[in-house]
């Protein structure tokens, strides 16, 4: 039983870490909190769902296609709307992302008539005995996806030119422009990457519950915020560690403490953290004044 709780917590935590990594990437590079991040998570799940049920595309292919579609979509959203506010105070962009997300989410509700739909696969349902416990296929998928994408993100950031450009932007936006980084394009690329990561989480983690509805983005985004703040805004490693911590805490808390107030502890933790150590575990020192860009 204990092992089961541990593994579940670890795997869900890995999923949260994946979702949070997109959020922290966008913040680290662009200094914008993407309040609409949850909608990419939701879309990741729904696009895959529609591909599977509408066109009979098998899950793995549908998942990959979903990532591409959502990534493109977030790129377009950024390019058409968000980048126009690049020079404005980040607060405006934050509200904008929120507004866009709400519009899309409500449109989804209209589309689905508010009914949750079943999002699962045969493989996902098959139990796999591992060690002393039984793990569902979907959990393995979630774990695998998380490891895969986190690894890819790491490689991207550390080993590619693109990654170096993003790092440069994260360190100093203006300086990056001075050394020739096309910040406008990179702005959109960052959102695209964030979208892909969120969609990856949506495709894998969302299916754990078996059913999805348009508001799963909300639950996802709240957890993602907790993870990002705990791990430090802008820190990938922090997001990973914090994600697993949150996953474990939730898993154990849900079983051994339980109660509707469970999530309340998470929020309390975040508030205390923001007051006393806003940078989180591994984040950089936060400026107290708003950055002008």
């Amino acid at each position, binding site marked *: 039983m204990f092992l089961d709780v541990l593994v579940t917590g670890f795997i869900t935590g890995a999923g949260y870490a994946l979702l949070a990594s997109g959020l922290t990437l966008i913040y680290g590079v662009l200094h914008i909190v993407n309040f609409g991040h949850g909608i990419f998570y939701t879309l990741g799940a729904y696009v895959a769902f529609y591909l599977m049920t509408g066109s009979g595309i098998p899950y793995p292919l549908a998942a990959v296609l979903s990532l591409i579609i959502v990534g493109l979509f977030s790129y377009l959203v950024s390019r058409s709307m968000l980048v126009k506010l690049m020079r404005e105070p980040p607060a405006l962009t934050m509200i904008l992302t929120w507004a866009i997300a*709400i519009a899309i989410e409500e449109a989804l509700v209209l589309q689905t008539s508010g009914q949750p739909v079943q999002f699962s696969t045969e493989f996902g349902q098959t139990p796999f005995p591992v060690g002393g416990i039984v793990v569902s296929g979907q959990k393995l998928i979630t774990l695998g996806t998380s490891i895969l994408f986190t690894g890819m993100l790491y490689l991207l950031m550390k080993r590619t030119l693109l990654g170096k450009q993003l790092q440069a932007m994260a360190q100093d936006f203006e300086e990056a422009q001075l050394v020739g980084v096309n910040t406008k394009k990179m702005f959109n690329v960052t959102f695209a990457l964030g979208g892909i990561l969120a969609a990856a989480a949506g495709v894998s983690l969302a299916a754990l519950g078996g059913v999805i509805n348009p508001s799963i983005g909300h639950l996802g985004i709240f957890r993602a915020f907790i993870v990002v703040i705990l791990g430090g805004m802008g820190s990938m490693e922090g997001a990973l560690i914090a994600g697993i911590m949150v996953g474990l805490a939730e898993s154990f808390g849900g079983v051994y403490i339980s109660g509707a107030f469970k999530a309340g502890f998470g929020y309390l933790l975040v508030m205390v953290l923001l007051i006393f150590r*806003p940078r989180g575990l591994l984040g950089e020192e936060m400026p*107290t004044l708003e950055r002008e860009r």
Partner: protein
Amino acid sequence: MKVAEIIKGRGMVVGLILSLMLPLLGFGSLIYLHLLILACIYGILAFSIEFPMTRLRAVPFGWGAAFGIGAYTSALLATEFGWPVIGCILLGVLASTLLGLVLGLITMKMRGSYFAIFSMVLLLFLQIVCVSWDSVTGGPAGVTGIPPISIGGLKLDTPFSFSFAGILAVWLVIFVIRRLTDSPWGRAVKAVGRNEVLAQSLSIHIAPYWVGTLSVAAAMCGLSGALYAHYFGAVGPTQMGLYYSLVALAAVIIGGGGTVGGPIAGTLFWVFVPEMLRMSGEMRMVIMGLAMVACMLFVRQGIWALAVSGFKKLGLTGRVQSQA
């Protein structure tokens, strides 16, 4: 700007009298009165968030918390203890002022993103408290059977009578905002919002203005919440939710901040447009979201300022240009 000039002094009285006649325009149409009241409640909500947003450049995503505290406090006091409703409303306002005070004190070092996130998490936390603290807050079902406002023996339990209270409340808020804005206090707040470092170099301490603004704004928001409670008769965890933050933000973004007309225009847009087009709840949100996006991209100053500048360009100010 025409309305701004109306609000001051004698113009304000004129405006007050004119708007008090608004409920009569409905010819007893319940829907009209209901919408009018909604516009009043959301209008106050919009003004309450406009205050910190434009002066201090602080965007509290969790503003629904002040609304919810005002609503719940007033509701609970009225139903549990049976105190006079006016008193309950005042205490509700006081409670949300306290919230604003505490929030201001805690967030003094937080700016921008952190402030936004913190307020949102606070709101979510309070929402969970409302849901799980059954014994006090009534849990998911919330508080029902909230008595209407009664002054002396007069009960404001019909939309017609309540609308007057609503309008008066809106004018009270407008009055407070105007007086504060045009005072030395208000100018200091503006300085803090524009450039904190510069303000400090001019011997303006950030603390009292930050905390003060948030407290006053929270007080207004609490009033809005309390009015909601005593009009609808029931409040639940939904009233301590993101929806009201959204309404407030949308009204200010769409209508425009920094003026008296802006939040009003935004609120009217929110309240009347979906009704006129007969939209369902979800469609309404889609349109609101899109309207917000459109305004942020194209009409940054809000539709009110847009309309005013449009009128000016057409030479329709209605005011004789006086010599300097």
